[in-house]
């Protein structure tokens, strides 16, 4: 094999992505959701949550972003299921709040828990912006913020401007 000159090799290697990015890499938004908060019997809340989820499963409804809240349970549904879920929960007599036209604003930061304080900083920035957050979620590489769709772009741009560090 012909030996590469040092410059050629270095150029080749510089083009490769050899390690994960540090800090926030980008912020995106995805719409088309409705958010549901359900208040359940708190005397045996674990049982009440299971019974509730069983009713939802029996109706063939897909839930996302399920969170156990002090009052009961919260989750997301596709906007297209909003009417049927509203009717179902009403018919079953559940106490619930449904917020339509919701979007997920997603802040990506690979291996974000290797950067202590980053997740809290993202949420603090969001709360300080005045945008009302209906729910949050976290993964190893992203924070998800559920907001009203007409506020999603504003929040996305704010998080981009405040959190993405521009390299030298």
């Amino acid at each position, binding site marked *: *094999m012909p*030996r590469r000159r*040092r410059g050629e*090799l*270095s150029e080749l*290697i*510089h083009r*490769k*992505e*050899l*390690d*994960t*990015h*540090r800090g926030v890499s980008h912020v995106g938004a995805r719409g088309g959701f409705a958010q549901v*908060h359900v*208040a359940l019997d708190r005397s045996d809340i*674990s*049982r009440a*949550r*299971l019974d509730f*989820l*069983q009713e*939802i*499963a029996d109706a063939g*409804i*897909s839930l*996302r*972003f*399920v*969170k*156990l*809240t*002090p*009052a*009961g349970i*919260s989750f997301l549904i596709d906007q297209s299921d909003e009417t049927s879920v509203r009717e179902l929960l009403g018919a079953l007599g559940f106490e619930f*709040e449904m917020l339509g036209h919701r979007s997920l604003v997603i802040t990506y930061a*690979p*291996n974000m*828990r*290797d950067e*202590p*304080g980053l*997740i*809290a*900083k993202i*949420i*603090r920035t969001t*709360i*300080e912006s005045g945008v*009302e*957050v*209906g*729910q*949050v*979620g*976290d*993964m*190893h590489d992203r924070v998800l913020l559920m907001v009203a769709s007409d506020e999603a772009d504003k929040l996305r741009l704010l998080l981009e401007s405040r959190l993405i560090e521009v390299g*030298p």
Partner: protein
Amino acid sequence: MKIKILKFGGTSVATPDARDRAVQRVLATQQLGFSPVVVVSAIGRRGAPYATDTLAELLSEMGTTVRAAPRELDLIMGVGEILSAAIFAHALRLAGAEASALTGGQAGIYTDGNFGNARITHIDPQLIISEVSAGSIPVICGFQGIAEPDAGAKTDGTLTTLGRGGSDTTAAALGAAIGAVTVEIYTDVDGVKTADPDFVSNAPTLRRVVYDEVAEIAHLGARVLHPRAAEIAMKNSIPLWVKSTFSDAIGTEVVSETQQRRCSGVTHTAKLAYLQFDLTALDQDVANQIRQTVYSALAANDLSLYMLDMSPSGIGFGIPVSEYPLVKELFDGLVLSFREHQLFLILQVGRKSSKEVETQAEVLGANAKVGRVIADIAQYCTVVSLIGRQLVVEPGMCLLALRSLYDENIRVIQTGQSDLSLSFLVPDVDTQRAVRALHERFAVGVDVNG
């Protein structure tokens, strides 16, 4: 020149017998016509004399009045891999091979200037290529590099370490930089298991797993491979294997696609404390101010957070259990004033009020309306996760998992979800039962050969 990267973990270089097995694997690779490039971790696991943690403790044992400088800490932690590389290169020479030990810097691994958790910025493998071309086996120190010349005057050219799992990261990045035909991670288990074998003794080994699933498995607790290594291999399409130094089992091949399994594994990770503030009885503006105060304090104190919840009825978050005393100190007894409501609210961490909270309530209560916002605490808990792309899209899977745990009388404190996993926060004492219950209910491992 077909280069193979072989990375040996701490247990694979810990004893003469283990080293001998590792050396034989390197020689066998060479005999098959490949050019081996070896990456080594420090010798042994936590507690061993030259293990990374032991070396780091050498400075703290001298006294705690002054914190160890990150630069010195990295220098001392890098010693473990330097010893290991020199010993392994010598072992190869004793076995009749040509070999030379290289530090991360000599191997051309450049990083940013973040001591203790540096990221690789580029690799100039000129010396590695020269060694390989000359028929010698480079034995490279994992977990370390040197700071880029432009990383700042205080970091310029000094040794940096790559953080947890850094040797896996070194191996994958080198594989990408020099166009290796494959990267093989050697450890003391047969490959990627469907669960921790200490918890599920018959947990099978996955024959194949896709890059993003193995990264998820690693992020959520499996220690067999570091997620950064899987992510680097994925981005650069480097074939990756996880194998045992000590057995001839074929191991796990990490690939870009495989047959769809419902579930590839059950993991457990992160000893956490979980706090959940109940805000149900509060006005929305009051609740918002509490949220803002809490998250500002968490951000200001650089705390890592897990399993977040922020609904109208409350906020919840997990923190590493080691940070619980700090969080208790931050919030327990903290008074928030709401002038427009003519109200003081005292935050209380735990159902039982502390002396601090009682004193605040007594002092403030004499002249004003005072309320309490109580955070329920689960002080010792663990995240147990089901991994699998199908799980997340198939309706009813969250319910099935919750029911499995409920049937075992295991309390689920919080849930989480990603594109590849469903996670459940459970009390630490129930971890093993939770892992077993989910492994059994989801029949994890029935299709490991896919």
